[in-house]
């Protein structure tokens, strides 16, 4: 049934936030009891084919999760030796979070011009960055900031110790065209 597959795609994409019955009903333009029964059908289907994932219901919210029997593999993956350096992408995101916190993923992506969810996930795994509540904006996006571990790893007493950003970020080559007042601004 097409709706079942569409539901699977939806629950996959929302990730750990899940969707509640009413939201699902609204997206498919069906009644909430129908939406709930659709979720149960998907759960059954995934059980039958012994998929790696399963439908989980928490209160009125539905989400996809990995099946507990595969936890050993996840553990192995999580513990596979972590690199002791950061990728350039991760460093860049960390720099933005450090200087502009609290900041949402969308704002980070606006600055970088590219998707940054993977780099951000790496930093959260490494406990250099953590959630700091939600922005007062549509969708209430998560705000990110640096952790105490971040300060420790970089040998800082506090965020005030972050070196101030250089006034003109290495674009001397084009500074001929900048007015002195403009330079002072950044």
């Amino acid at each position: 049934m097409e709706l079942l597959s569409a539901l699977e795609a939806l629950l996959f994409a929302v990730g750990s936030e899940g969707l509640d019955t009413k939201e699902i009903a609204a997206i498919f333009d069906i009644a909430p009891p129908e939406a709930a029964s659709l979720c149960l059908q998907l759960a059954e289907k995934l059980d039958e084919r012994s998929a790696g994932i399963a439908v989980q219901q928490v209160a009125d919210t539905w989400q996809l999760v990995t099946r507990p029997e595969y936890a050993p593999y996840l553990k192995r993956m999580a513990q596979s030796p972590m690199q002791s350096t950061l990728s350039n992408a991760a460093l860049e995101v960390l720099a933005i979070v450090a200087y502009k916190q609290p900041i949402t993923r969308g704002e980070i992506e606006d600055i970088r011009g590219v998707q940054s969810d993977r780099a951000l996930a790496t930093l959260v795994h490494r406990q250099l960055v953590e959630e700091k509540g939600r922005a007062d904006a549509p969708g209430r996006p998560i705000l990110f900031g640096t952790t105490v571990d971040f300060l420790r790893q970089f040998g800082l007493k506090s965020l005030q110790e972050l070196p101030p950003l250089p006034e003109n970020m290495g674009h001397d080559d084009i500074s001929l065209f900048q007015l002195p007042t403009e330079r002072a601004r950044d």
Partner: protein
Amino acid sequence: MPYEVKLAQFEGPLDLLLHLIRKNEVDIYDIPIAIITEQYMDYLHAMEAWSLEIASEFLVMAATLLSIKSRMLLPRTRVAEEEGEEDPRLPLVEQLLEYERCKWAASQLSNMASARAEVYSRSPMDLSPYRNRDIPALDGVTMWDLVDAYRKLYMRLPAAERVAEIRGHVERVEDVMVDLVDKIRRYRRIEFMMLFQSVRTRQSLVTGFLAVLEMIKDGTIACEQSEPFGPLELIWMGD
């Protein structure tokens, strides 16, 4: 107005030329250069009439077209024909074909991007519950790497977002004319090459040349050449 609002949509002179070739349904290997040149110039004039800024590349192409046209008009000597002299249109045709391929590839990429936009991923799951407490310390990553990362990010920003807009190389014939009027009136009589001594790029030279043609046309200046291949002299005709 036959040109509608499409005027500014052309990515460049090659794009405009391809459009004209398609519109006239002519053979790209045998471009009727007189017709296409005329229509090309009409477009430029229309752009002017609409006060659209004409990028210098369009003017360079105009000069190229006029030069091809004049070479096509020259009687071809038998010797030249026997020696298989190259069709003056050939380099332009090759450039047009290459650019057409580029446009094709761009449209393919655009399709692929829209197909990709139909596919969604999900944020990585937080695996920290599966992880041992000990996270290895960062090795060789210092505060200055962070600052450096920020600096590099800043360098990557398109210039347009970094500083106030700088429009390089956009010269309008009218603006150049104003300059030239000043100069020629001052000198009364000046050699063409002297006038453009300080010009550094081909584009500016072409823009300047077009400005001179325009001024000759409206009688502001006259042009004299005392002997074949001698220097061209521009003479102020106003008061």
